[in-house]
């Protein structure tokens, strides 16, 4: 029974709810917005592309509209030898990541450097562009920034892609989509807990490591190990391939699902994959009737499995 209180009550309710929203939304937002992006944040968002979940470019989360990450040792324009460089290739019409669209996200100094020194805002989505992450020193502190190498050095997306063979291409952005769509993060967090956890899973993320990334997919409950630095612990593509096809091939006690359906119809050599035959052969192996498990097909370049492996290997 509220008696006459309900009018006063409605105002009090507005005040109470409003002040709690002010403290929990407005105040942290101001703090978080003032944090500068780290090198890691720039590498992540350039590799992942714009959105990691549902978007116009990719409504069914097939991994369309994502950049390709390449490792090159030759200048794409001149062909001269250069330091090993990781470049993020955005062919025409691939949506740019949020930090490039809205430089403010990168924080004060990195965005200023990215625009003035890196000519980041000269990039054009219609034409495509190639980005790299650079570091420079300002007042004794190392500051990362994004360089639009298409503008500064004339590396076109096609020429840059051509300098990297299949081994040096990584479909990390598409792989992140697979990670989200297949719900890997329901069981594998991307956020090590404190102290003892770090000794096992590696360093925790720092402020500014996520600027521009969405979704962050930290996960909330673990049924398998944390994957924040999994690429540093295990960089074997072969192992990943077996593990994704059937985790029990490399870890008999694993409870991870099989992701064999991500191989698609054909393997890397274009041969059709006969899943029924494979599973029948595996059942024989599991029953102890054969000594060796059937061979796992190598995933095709444009398969979802390849992208997922690229993503996981590059979590460092």
């Amino acid at each position, binding site marked *: *029974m509220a*008696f*006459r*209180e309900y009018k006063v*009550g409605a105002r*009090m309710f507005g005040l*109470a709810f409003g*002040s*709690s929203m002010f*403290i929990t939304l407005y105040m942290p937002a101001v*703090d978080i917005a003032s*944090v500068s992006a780290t090198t890691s944040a720039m590498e992540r968002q350039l590799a992942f592309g714009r959105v990691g979940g549902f978007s116009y470019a990719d409504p069914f989360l097939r991994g369309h509209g994502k950049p390709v990450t390449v490792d090159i040792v030759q200048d794409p324009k001149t062909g001269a030898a250069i330091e090993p460089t990781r470049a993020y290739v955005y062919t025409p019409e691939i949506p740019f990541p949020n930090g490039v669209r809205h430089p403010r996200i990168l924080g004060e100094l990195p965005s200023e450097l990215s625009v003035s020194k890196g000519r980041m805002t000269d990039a054009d989505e219609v034409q495509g562009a190639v980005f790299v992450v650079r570091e420079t020193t300002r007042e004794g502190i190392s500051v990362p920034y994004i360089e639009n190498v298409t503008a500064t050095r004339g590396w076109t997306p096609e020429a840059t892609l051509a300098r990297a063979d299949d081994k040096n291409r990584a479909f990390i952005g598409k792989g992140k989509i697979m990670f989200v769509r297949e719900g890997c993060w329901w069981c594998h967090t991307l956020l090590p807990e*404190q*102290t003892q956890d*770090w*000794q096992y899973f*590696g*360093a*925790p993320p*720092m*402020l500014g490591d996520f600027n521009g990334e969405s979704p962050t997919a930290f996960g909330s409950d673990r049924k398998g190990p944390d994957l924040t630095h999994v690429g540093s612990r295990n960089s074997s593509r072969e192992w990943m391939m077996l593990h994704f096809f059937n985790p029990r091939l490399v870890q008999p006690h694993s409870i991870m699902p099989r992701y064999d359906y991500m191989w698609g119809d054909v393997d890397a050599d274009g041969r059709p994959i006969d899943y029924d035959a494979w599973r029948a052969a595996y059942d024989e192996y599991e029953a102890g009737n054969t000594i060796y498990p059937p061979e796992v097909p190598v995933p095709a370049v444009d398969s979802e499995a390849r992208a997922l492996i690229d993503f996981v290997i590059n979590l460092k």
Partner: protein
Amino acid sequence: MAWKFDNPLGTLTTDDQNVSAKKLWNEETLGGITEDNKRLPQPVVALMVLTIITAFMITFPLWGKRPTAAIYAPYIEMMSSAEVQGKSDDEAMTYIVSQVKASGFEWQSELERHPLEMDDLRLIRDQLIKLKQQGVDLREYNVLGNQLVMANFEGNRRADGSVERFQPWWDKGYTIAGFFIIFFTIGVVIAIKRLPENEWQPTHGGH
């Protein structure tokens, strides 16, 4: 509202407001649902106070905080002392731990929560000595496996504009929480004191 400063809570409501409230309370049964005008039971008030005290007590020493380099400084100092030389690692470690404990170290409880072995100490030894020579505040550094890194912490600013990377005993979060609880308590006391006094009980229209 005839609010009197010398009797603030008793005069939040006027007599005629109370009369109409009682009338309403007695006559409306709200489809068979009614409610009594009982006071807040003392155990409930006590539990509420206990909860507020506990809330600060349990979070105040920041259990589970990442270990800072500062807590291991005495260990590192003792590593090179004469008493430790010639002992096996386990013996040396036991000796160091007991010595530091006996000295009444400020962050003893932190040390107990983040135990180390001699090998761990060796890994961070040189880094810690180097940081000490630089004259930085060791509380601003976390021990991260085999590395000492600047704490991942946005703290208060010093006079020169640089950021303090450790938590002050008063923290912005605690301060806000303190104010928040005070406002809440005042608000609820006002809301409750505006009701008819609790000696009066409704008859619920005979229900």
